[in-house]
């Protein structure tokens, strides 16, 4: 009995049909928002999270690298070729673990958000929390690796005398050698951020819908 109680407490109150009939939208909103957030998260897997454009006179079209959660695209080979002059390791050596697990992890986050649809208690916030934090975690990890790569240059590289270890700009403009760099959050990260905001709004809507029911239930007990 205790276990069932606890389960019911976590799951939260079910919606009585008469309440649903009266305030249909109020109960529908959190479902829609969570579902939308989950879908955006899944879509974001197929889009770059972060992009970097290098501008230099001899590259009229610029050099681009697009960072997806599980791989890099763009002029990676050429950028690696240039980076070897300053002793930076090949970009694909970075964040190997993160890239390996990212698809499953984000899929899991999306499932947790979907699960939160059915959890009408404050526990829903805990389920949705990882997804809310995803953009921040991504940027933090990105910073870690950029810093790690920028600070650990091979001292025997050809141009190591002219380039001091540095931390590449994570968002915005930077300058390294003749290259002007422009780094920006790309569609994937933007979608993930929108998903975070939708989840936060969804949690608020969910509390607004179910708190009265919860209070009533507790009152009955």
């Amino acid at each position, binding site marked *: 009995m205790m276990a069932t109680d606890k389960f019911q407490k976590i799951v939260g109150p079910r919606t009585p049909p008469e309440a649903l009939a009266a305030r249909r939208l109020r109960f529908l909103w959190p479902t829609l928002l969570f579902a939308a957030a989950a879908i955006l998260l899944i879509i974001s897997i197929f889009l770059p999270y972060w992009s970097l454009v290098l501008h230099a006179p001899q590259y*009229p079209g610029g050099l681009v690298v697009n960072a997806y959660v599980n791989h890099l695209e763009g*002029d990676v*080979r*050429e950028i690696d*070729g240039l980076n070897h*002059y300053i002793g930076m390791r090949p970009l694909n050596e970075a964040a190997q673990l993160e890239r390996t697990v990212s698809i499953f992890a984000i899929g899991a986050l999306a499932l947790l958000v979907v699960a939160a649809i059915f959890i009408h208690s404050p526990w829903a916030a805990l389920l949705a929390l990882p997804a809310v934090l995803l953009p921040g975690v991504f940027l933090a990890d990105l910073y870690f690796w950029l810093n790690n790569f920028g600070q650990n240059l091979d001292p025997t590289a*050809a141009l190591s005398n002219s380039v001091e270890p540095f931390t590449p700009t994570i968002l915005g403009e930077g300058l390294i050698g003749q290259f002007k760099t422009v780094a920006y959050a790309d569609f994937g990260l933007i979608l993930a951020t929108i998903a975070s905001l939708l989840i936060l709004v969804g949690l608020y809507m969910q509390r607004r819908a179910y708190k009265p029911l919860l209070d009533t239930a507790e009152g009955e007990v």
Partner: protein
Amino acid sequence: MKRNILALIILTMLIAAGCSLADRPTTAPAAPSEAGSEAAAPEAAGLSADAAAIAQERGLSPDDITAALKVYQPTGVHDEYMIFASGGHSGQVLVIGVPSMRLLKVIGVFTPEPWQGWGYGVGNQVLDEGAINGRSIRWADTHHPALSETAGDYDGEWLFINDKANARVAVIDLRDFETKQLLKNPVVINDHGGTFVTPNTEYVIEGGQYAAPLGWAYESLDTYNDTYRGAVTFWKFDREAGRIDPDQSFLIELPPYWQDLCDSGKQVSEGWIFCNSLNAERATGGIEEGNPPFEAGASQGETDYMHLINLKKAEEVVQNGGTTEVNGFAVISLQTAIDEGILYMTPEPKSPHGVDITPNGQYMVVSGKLDPHVTVYSFAKMLETIEAEKWTTDDYGVPVLALDDLKEAQVELGLGPLHTQFDNQGYAYTSLFLDSAVARWSLGGEYADLHPEEPWQLVGKTSVHYNIGHLLAAEGDTVSPDGKYLVAMNKWSIDRFAPVGPLLPQNFQLLDIDNTGENMQLLYDMPIGIGEPHYAQMIKADKLEPWEVYPEVGWDPHTQAPSPDGVQIGEEKVERDGSEVEVFMTAVRSHFTPEHVEIEQGDHVIWHITNVEQALDATHGFSIPGYDINLSLEPGEAATFEFDAEEPGVFSYYCTEFCSALHLEMTGYLLIKPSGPTAMTTE
């Protein structure tokens, strides 16, 4: 005073040019002064009093300014058309942009070309295909490039060119602008009327020139009429393989009339080939023996013979095994050509030098260079006459159709007419060698409605400088010419350029043929300082789709496929098997791997090297001093060269393309140890 008037004219023109711009305060009337309004695009906003001052200071006339505005390409703006020109004696092909007339590339073809490494480690096997009787021939008299065609229109995929001196043909792949194949004609010793393609590039046609016994045999000149022969060769092109297949090719034996230029029939005349000739007199020269020299002997008669060849029937004969073999090459004998209705002839005025088919395929245009007319023959009348079996025969029994039965028109143009091309306005353009001019004349038939003039009339002439040979209009020998631009390929430049010693450059002159009527403005002079180009073709640039870099790292440009000897990063090594050493090397900015290669004197070295770059323009060179090796390794390219390490010593190999800031450091040491204890002693 004169200067002031000139300045005023220029100023008026410039203002007229700028007056279409709303934001430009001007009271000048919007008169459509020809040049001004053409140039009055919004880009003309920069025109200012400064421009007028510059024009005045440089002594530029309003026409000069118009010409400059029509050809100038700002940096980064690509040309609308590309010319592929024969490089003449250089043995190469020139690639030129239009309207800027900038030289974009010299493609190594028959002759070594060090920048491309052509013959210095890459392309050697192709150049060796051009050897004759085992002797390597490293120059060529390139004459007539031919772009591949689909349905009679340039398709931008392949380019062919002949070597007149040695009767050779080259195949160039326009994916990478590299030569893929050279072929020596095994039957004739020289050619002229090549290369031309059939409307779908089934065949590359190589016309003959100076008659000789077939198969490079010896016969006395006394037996000229019986043993000397002309020929036209049909090389079968296998588009899939990107090669000419000699086993599917054949040649038609012709009378010794010195066949010259050919052209393929198109549209209604597809399946027929037309070649002119210039020595129906069968003069054999011998000025030193009191005979008339060739120049006189071959010009005695009033007419020579245009050859009319039914290619479809020739193909049937080949398929039915009706050929003989000369040096292993299929030959349709003259008698078979006559018997099977493959070959007919018709007289053409005097010592002609071109036969050009109109875009609709209905007319054959011939210029007798010693006759002031172009003669226009009707293909339909030709068929009717053949159908009616109305002919006489020449000494060899070849049916000769009467000129009057085939003639559609004759147009008097001027002195020394040579070659004709066409535009999209119903005009034809003929080069006049002796007049040093380009003649524009009006076509009749279904072209008559396209232009305001009466059909078959001279419309205008523009002087060119000097002694024009071929001319070319934009896609002017296809089924759908573009008009717009025409280039006069002048043999002499005389006073056009600053003097550079007694050997003068040729002169390509760009003409604007976009309007109708008499006027064709001369826009630009381009000196050619590498050889004497003969013919060229102009293709719309957007039809070409060349690769920016090779599709994969480790690509063999010769096979256009990944090379089994391509080297990837991490696979570099040096292997020894007895006295054979195999080097597997990569090149990337800014190092070769390995940087030390140690071998022994007497070793045979097989050296594989791959440029692992994939960036546009990241080409590396690779040279070994003392061993005559210099490669050009374009991004992705894999090359293999071999040499015998005969001289010991220390050889620094290095990158010969300035590839990067650390280009000078892109080097390595080849150490060839002396063999035996006494091989190397220091004095």
